[in-house]
């Protein structure tokens, strides 16, 4: 290695903690380094604003995912939801028992700061998993993926998936809405597993963004079949890009 050279910079910003920076005058154009948040900040004459992060902080700030895996991925079985005659052609909340090692909370920082837990509901009958969108703004887009199989009792059936969204309180209309797709056309006979990984994309519009503390959009995964059968849910995952 050759001789290292100094940079051409002849000045170095002050290296300060966050609290100290907050006490400084709001002098337009100056630059300081926040050693707590590891970011450069500048002032527009009225407030301090970040102008640079380290890579790890940036990643956590703008992207992440939230995965809920059943025991299927840990040597066990997927969680089954029975679609009986009464459930045929109805949208049904899915059941999901998250494995003890199956929760992966890598949500963006703002979501974590807003809600320590990403979802509500334990995934049993009557208490479905509902994913909380709090901490997200209208610049966010996301993907959702469910991993499942379906075993129909009748041939030539059809299986559909959807994300059902609950809007926050500051919107009109306040009714729920959904994003749907046909996931399976089951033409190869009954009594066999048809595997599917439905992927649904969405963006955070002005009715499901963060409207206030504990007031943001939510979504849950539902399925509908036109034949009886058994749903075997393996995992639910949300991928978020803020």
């Amino acid at each position, binding site marked *: 290695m050759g001789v290292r050279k100094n940079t051409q910079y002849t000045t170095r910003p002050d290296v300060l903690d966050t609290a100290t920076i907050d006490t400084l005058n709001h002098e337009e154009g100056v630059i300081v380094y926040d050693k707590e948040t590891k970011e450069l900040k500048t002032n527009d004459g009225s407030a301090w604003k970040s102008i640079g992060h380290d890579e790890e902080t940036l990643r956590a700030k703008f992207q992440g995912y939230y995965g809920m895996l059943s025991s299927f991925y840990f040597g066990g079985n997927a969680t089954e939801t029975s679609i009986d*005659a009464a459930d045929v052609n109805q949208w049904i909340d899915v059941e999901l028992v998250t494995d003890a090692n199956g929760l992966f909370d890598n949500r963006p920082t703002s979501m974590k700061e807003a809600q320590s837990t990403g979802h509500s509901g334990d995934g049993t009958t009557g208490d479905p998993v509902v994913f909380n969108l709090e901490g997200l703004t209208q610049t966010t887009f996301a993907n959702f993926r469910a991993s499942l199989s379906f075993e129909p009792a009748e041939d030539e059936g059809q299986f559909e998936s959807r994300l059902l969204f609950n809007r926050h309180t500051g919107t009109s209309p306040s009714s729920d809405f959904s994003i749907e797709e046909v996931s399976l056309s089951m033409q190869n*006979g009954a009594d066999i597993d048809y595997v599917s990984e439905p992927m649904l994309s969405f963006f955070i519009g002005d009715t499901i963004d963060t409207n206030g503390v504990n007031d943001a959009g939510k979504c849950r995964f539902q399925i509908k079949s036109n034949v009886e059968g058994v749903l075997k849910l393996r995992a639910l995952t949300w991928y978020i890009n803020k």
Partner: protein
Amino acid sequence: MANIKIYGDLDSGSIFFINSTVDPKALGTVVASLIDVSGNERILVERNDRFQEDGVSFRVLFKKLNPNRVCNQSGQELISQLSYTSQQVVDYINAQSQLTGANGGDGNGTDVTGTAIDFKLDDTSTSIMLDNGFTYGVNTIKAIADTDGTIHIVSELGDLTYFTGLIHTDVLINGVGASGGLSDVVNALNELFQVGAFESIVISDPHSTLIADVGGDLDSGSLVGNAINPSGNDIGAGIQAHYNKAGYKSSETIDQAGEYFTFNMRNEGIFGACLVLNDISDAQGNTAYADPSVFCDGVNNSGNYGIQWGMFFHPSPNGPWTYYGAASGTLYGSGWNGVDAFRYSNDGANWLNGDAEEFRIGIDANSFISMEYYNNDNSSWVVVSRTNYPVGNNVKFHLGIKFCDSVVRLVDTPKVHLLEPVAPTMYFRYIESPDGNYEYPLFATEEEANYYDLNHGGTVGTGTSHAHTYNDDPTNTTWYMADTGSTMTGTTVPPADTFKGISVSYTEITSLANADLTPSQFSSSDLMYVEGTVVNLQLYPSGATFTQSVTITPTGSGLVYNTASGYLQGTLTDVPSDTDYTIEVTRANSYGSTVGTFLITATDVAPVSTNTTSWDKAIDFSGSSEYLKHMSGNATASQNPLGLSSGTYIAKNSNPLYTASSSSSRPWAHTIVFKADGHNSLQTIWNNGEAFYSNGDNFGLEIDANNNLHFYYGQGSSTSNNYNKCIVQLAIDTSKWYGVYIAHKGGRLSGSDATKVNLGQCFDIRVMSSADNFASLSVDKSGSWSGGNWSQTGRRMDKAVNGLYTIGATASYQKPFHGKVASSVITTLKNNSLAPVSAEIELMIKDPLKWEADYKQGTTFRAADSSSTASVPSVTSVSYNYATQIHLMGDSIGIYPYSNNDAFPDILNNLRWYNTTKMTMQNMVSNDIENVSISGLS
């Protein structure tokens, strides 16, 4: 969960699962079995024509179908409504999947009793259409006369029945009611159903006309039960309301088809006309009812007792009411509720008035028991009803009349009508031959015909007959016709008729239609012969009996049809181009005519060339700056036969056939053979002059974007637009070669003199082409006296024309040509001499070398750009070389004196090699010299 209808269907060959997600599956591919699911009976339904991934397990249609959901086609729940067990449901599904025509489904046919059905073929004669909406392919179904006395429509192959119970009087064919009896209608339907190569319809059961004793014999039977002989003239009546206590029973019996009883009844009341068995052992159906010993015994008050079958009349419907008997199955006739319904007839009205009406009951021609009333308006018997089953031959029946109240009266003694022992069973037939002409009655035996001759209505004969055969009878049967009482020229089927008082039923002798007998259409593939071919084609088949005529269009083919031999003969005329002759062959006989055509194409063959000149090469110009340049040197007119170094006015010769007489005259002639590409531009084919500039003098031949040829001569401008112009030919064919001859006879006009007429006399312009193999020479397009085709005039010609002779463009490669040039000939003409005439012109275009030998050798010639003349040398001198030049565009070889050949880029004067009389290819390549074949020249 909704119920599912599961049922098989033979028509579609499928088993359906209505109201489920499962589509219909082919019959025989579905298997059901009972399974236990957590203590509940469920049905596993699989298909045995598809397998799961393991390749062994059947694909599952229903994994655990609840049997309670399964319904039949009618929607009945098998378990809750029909009390099936789960296993029976499984069996039901499997049975539906295995349906065949013999065990269920629609294969048993639809009962159409009482429904009129119209049958017809579609316009293409490929489908049989029924007006109830069903269609079948021709030759796929057939009609059969069932033992129940109705028509059944069944599949031609296999055992599917489509329709049952079709009464023959309900059948229409092409909108017209089918005539005749059951057998006739069946035959008519089958004739309709069979399309294609005609198959004889063998009428195995023609409708018979049984000749019973119309007069009849009085029966000697008696009243039975408590029947009384009432006061007055009537002979029988009841005394109370009872269906089996009073009546009349004949002593006579009938036992043959065609035999019957007649009797007269009056007063509107209840009576039954019945047949009573003579022997209980002959009973059909309920033997308790059939027992003749209980007839009117007064024990059971029921119309059924004592009779095999009976038709009962009643006041409430004012006539036919119901039927009773041991086997009461009945089909209504038209006298029940049809067009001749008794209750609406005058006879019914009479009965209501208490007047006597005549009835009969007996065994009809098809062995059914038939009860009929006599329609006095139509003088015919009308069937009220009949059994739907035949009775056995030789089974003896008595007449039984039940008086079911005290009102009705038996008017007089009934009669029995037995078959006449001497009468043959008569099978009346007719034939339509040819179409629209009906002949009848015809019989299969001479005995029938003779009997008819003796017994028909009107003037009878002596029991003689004659025989007929018919060309359109495919069975070629000999039929017999009585010598009297017959019709040979009927225009319709035989009208309703009686013979010895008995209604006659005709059966049609199936005959071929005129269309079947019209001569087959002549057919031949098109033929092609070269012109001059001797043709000898047989058009008339050996042994044929039809007449045949032939027309040939257009005329002039050289062929004629020899009617006697049936051959098309002759020698195909020479044609200028391929020519189609349509040969129309008309065949006719008494049944009609057909017309067939084919083409004979006479192909044009170019004659074998006898030219001295070779025509195997040409130079291909592709526009741009490609052209041929004469090497005489700029303005060296003495080396160019077209040279005009002096500018002066030259008076034309007063005789336009001659060249100008002035010593300053420089007449010339030029030919060129070329073929144009049809390029969309104004192009120079050849030019002599200074190119198109201001004050430039030029003459030459050009072609425009519309393929119009012009000769131009004049001065100035960047194009020839301001020149004298003559239209050589409009819209030349770019697929043909053209030869253009232009002679300037020396007159050089001022602008004011350059009129059409004067110009016309100064030039001679001719055209030939490969369109007729260079056979004909056009008229003079310059026009001599008339001014011809000069489209622009008034431009001066009295200027010197310097510059160069070029082909394919001007010397400044202006207006380049797109096309091929095979030859160019330029020559001086002598002053005050007869200009070339047609024969020479033609030869100069077609065979320049022979022209030079025939018309130059042994004569004198004028030197180029000079008035001096000299003898044409046998070996081309330099001077003569300047005066006559033949450029053959690659075909010149061994040129004197050094045996030079045309070789890129030099195209030599064929008469002599000389550097200044060759033409050189400018901006071209060696393979622009191409091989060609010119029809009429090569």
